[in-house]
């Protein structure tokens, strides 16, 4: 591990000033410390933000607001979260392990780095870790990699389950930086890799995530998160799907579908959603709609199975959501 300094800060202003001097924010540390041990991340200074008052979870007007420092476990267990957005609770509970969920913050979860094995090996080529060095995965072992949003430079999937749920629910994020506060849809946090996979997100230097705002809509109680994997827990998704259905008079009026494990960022499925509108919520109709999910999908040598698994996962998630309507 590289030598580094730690600054503990007591206010957002102090945090932003420290980060402006080159410090990296640290909360639960479940991703960053791991990567620092491997020297994949080499920050010379850390800004410990755990003392900031950003651990709130509350209903505000028409939104569920979750502070950036709330822990995964406490958000998942929160009665209001479970009542208005069961999808979020389920996505959180399907992520990581109990120990990690106790430590990991919501902001850190959304900012976690990819699980591509080559990204984590200093001696392997990785455009994300070392721009211009190449991508060892595209011609290498890539069974876990993305089939959507890939480029010649990178095919790593975004690993967050929570992000998939939040993208499905049209959540926004509030951040504060040296130039003040701004708010934007969470989907816009994530960049496609294109030819610059080392640029993963759209936060500006020293910007601090304050909280996440999730619009509350009555039909969100149908939300389900399905994570398909070989091990029952503590494994990243091969394919996952978040599904929310608004069914009235036996017809789908609105649908929200987003997927994980398949895209280089959390992947909203507008074509699937559109195909559901006006349809009866039957398995056959779900299958027909889910078939749109693989438009533009490109398999590498090892992940072709995801093209078969993706629509099946969406179909099942829609069936599960349909059971709660």
């Amino acid at each position: 591990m590289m030598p580094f300094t730690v600054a503990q800060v007591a206010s957002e202003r102090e945090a932003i000033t420290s980060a402006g001097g080159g410090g990296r924010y640290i909360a639960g540390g479940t991703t960053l410390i791991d990567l620092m041990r491997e020297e994949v991340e080499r920050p010379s200074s850390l800004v410990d933000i755990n003392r900031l008052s950003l651990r709130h979870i509350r209903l505000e007007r028409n939104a569920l607001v979750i502070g950036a420092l709330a822990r995964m476990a406490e958000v998942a267990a929160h009665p209001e979260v479970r009542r208005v957005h069961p999808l979020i609770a389920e996505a959180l509970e399907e992520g990581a392990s109990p120990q990690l969920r106790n430590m990991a913050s919501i902001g850190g979860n959304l900012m976690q780095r990819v699980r591509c094995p080559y990204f984590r090996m200093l001696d392997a080529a990785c455009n994300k870790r070392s721009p211009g060095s190449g991508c060892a995965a595209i011609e290498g072992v890539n069974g876990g990699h993305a089939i959507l949003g890939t480029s010649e430079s990178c095919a790593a999937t975004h690993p967050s389950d929570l992000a998939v749920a939040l993208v499905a629910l049209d959540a926004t994020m509030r951040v504060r930086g040296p130039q003040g506060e701004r708010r934007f849809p969470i989907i816009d946090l994530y960049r496609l890799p294109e030819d610059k996979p080392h640029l993963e997100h759209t936060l500006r230097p020293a910007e601090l995530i304050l909280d996440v705002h999730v619009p509350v809509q009555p039909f969100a109680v149908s939300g389900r998160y399905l994570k398909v994997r070989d091990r029952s827990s503590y494994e990243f998704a091969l394919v996952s799907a978040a599904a929310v259905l608004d069914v009235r008079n036996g017809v789908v009026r609105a649908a929200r579908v987003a997927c994980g494990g398949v895209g280089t960022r959390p992947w909203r499925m507008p074509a699937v959603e559109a195909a559901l509108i006006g349809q009866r919520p039957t398995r056959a109709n779900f299958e027909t709609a889910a078939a749109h999910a693989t438009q533009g999908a490109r398999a590498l040598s090892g992940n072709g199975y995801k093209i078969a698994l993706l629509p099946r996962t969406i179909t099942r998630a829609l069936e599960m959501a349909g059971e709660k309507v």
Partner: protein
Amino acid sequence: MSTSVFGQSIPRVDGPLKVSGGARYAFEFNQSGQLYAVIVNATIGIGRIVSIEATGVEQMPGVRAVISHLNAPKLTYSPHKGVIDPAVGERLRVFQDEQIRFFGQPVAVIVADTLDQAEHAATALRLRYDAQAPLTEIDDPRAQPIVAQQTAAANARVAADRERGSADQAFADTDVKVDAIFRMARENHSPMEPHATVASWEGDSLTVWSKSQYVLNERAELAAIFGIPPENVLVICPFVGGAFGTSLRTWSHVGIAALAARVVGRPVKLALTRKQMFLDTGHRPRTDQRIAIAATNQGKLTAIIHEATAETSRYEEFIEGITNQTEFLYSCPNVRTRYRLVPTDTSTPTYMRAPGECTGMHALECGLDELAAALDLDPIELRRRNEPTVDESNGRPFSSRSLLQCLETGAERFGWSQRNPRPGSMRDGRWQIGWGVAGSTRGAPQAPADASVRLLPDGRVEVASATSDMGPGTYTSMAQVAAATLGVPVERIKFELGRSDMPTAPSHGGSWTMASVGNAVRSACLAAQDAAVRRAVEDPASIFHGLTADVLHWKDGTLGRKNGEGPRLDQVALLRGGMPIDVRTTASRSTDIANRYSMYGYAAFFTEVAVDADLGIVRIRRMLGVYGIGKVVNPRLARSQCIGGMVGGIGMALMERTVLDQRDGRPVNAHMADYLVPVNLDVPTLETQFLDEQDDAVNPLGIKGIGELCIIGVAPAIANAVYHATGKRVRELPIRIENLLGA
């Protein structure tokens, strides 16, 4: 014996130490003035080191030494091959030349004041290589299978080729048959405790606190590496946090720790990272197998052909008995087996729980299930129709044989008669339900072992042997044997293990610790009682003075006259504050017994799986194992071991695989988040049942051993259940979602 502690489910005697943190593992033996070592591993698959830029690294804060082939002392590396080392080839010699034989080979070690400094320096060390393209997979078109030297003779323990009858002819002449290829992944042991060694020199004497299942071999290997007498090496390892075979051999990091300590003249601590545990600490080899079985319409086997190919390294021939069980488990006149190795540019495989057996038995037990389906016959009935009366591979009688009893007892308890044999016929909502069965067998070995017993005047008893306890409960079971033999409460027994200066014990692996060391403990306890009798009749102050030994006998911990006259004295009364009684004895199986019987343990596994056919997900719903293993010293501990075997079998069947990047042989999933082993949610309630079995031939205690038997057969039971649920045969392990999509 009804009140004897032998056979009782007493709790682990070392349990409180383990749960309170009082049990000390190798890594925890900090030494005064200790430095930290971190290994640097090669980042190419094969080639040579061109240069090492060490100067800058040597100047980094806290760095005491950067040791590589450029500056390491030439080490003696005397010939030494323990029973756990491959007999053919030569072990890796660290830092002795510039050749790179596999990805991850240690190329340097950094010694620094702190672990962080050593890790950082290790990351900073730059090496240049001349790299070539390695061959890493046995099914690579360039792969060249060989006959391993040790397997060339027809009577070899593991034979390259062996045949009785005319298997190919009989196979061709029979109508009902299966012929299938099974492809199994490389596995790594992945125990909780990482390999770790603390090494300290005093002159020409070396002490290591090192994670080991075989402290005596570790002593011999270190002595050979450094060219010093074995008496100059002391290996200490009182506790092992799981091993499954990975700590049987003395891998390169142990020698590196000792070398580093010698170079810097200070004690050195070295632990492998999880990632490093996938590089050079052995693995279950990747295998391909062909199983071809034919039977008459009545379900009588006419031919079995079993051909196996396994990976080994270029520098050693690692062999294991993959096809041995096929030769005797079922009655069949025509059996042919074949075993080949493919040397690859990877590190040497090693024994991993049930080495060979659980690989070969997967193919055999799945093959038999396929044959039963082809015959439209219940798989248990098929086995019943092919039960042998003798071991047909050598004509010997079985010392005891309980395969059918295991199957029938298990079938009754599991409710096997309720199974609809048609695949895909049983459902629970979205889940397709499958029931599967498989048999298991494993030899009941006993190796020569020594134990010492000391009877103390205060009534305590100290027993020792240089064995190990990687989890099965050696501390507890040996205390039970000693207590039962001596007729004293188990609380009086202190059993010690894990030091190379203790009486000789065999490797703690291969399911023979209880049979080998247990019988040695028994012999030593009996010898101690004999010695006490001799002292009593010779001691003028003893009430037994002048009697002949044959009129006295021990009963329930007291010595007295056989005819019941006069008082009986216990250990305290007998020794009366005098000198302790010390004995040391050997126990071993006679050649006569070894050659007279076919000695095996047996088991049967039943499992229910649920398969989500849309998504390819397999979940285990329940599992039952029934075991015929002779006497069970402690059912609670044996059950734990059996449950561990089932969990390992679930991993083998559904999750575990080490994936190599074929371009350089790099393991890409060397991480516990990516090398999948079962978590709690993957493991349902597991049931175990031990048959009441008496086998007087195997050894005086009637022990057959269980550690390997209890994983063999688990994976095929699961694979057969997946077939029953889906109608799809996945002939690849692990069976993953990817394999089952479209089932």
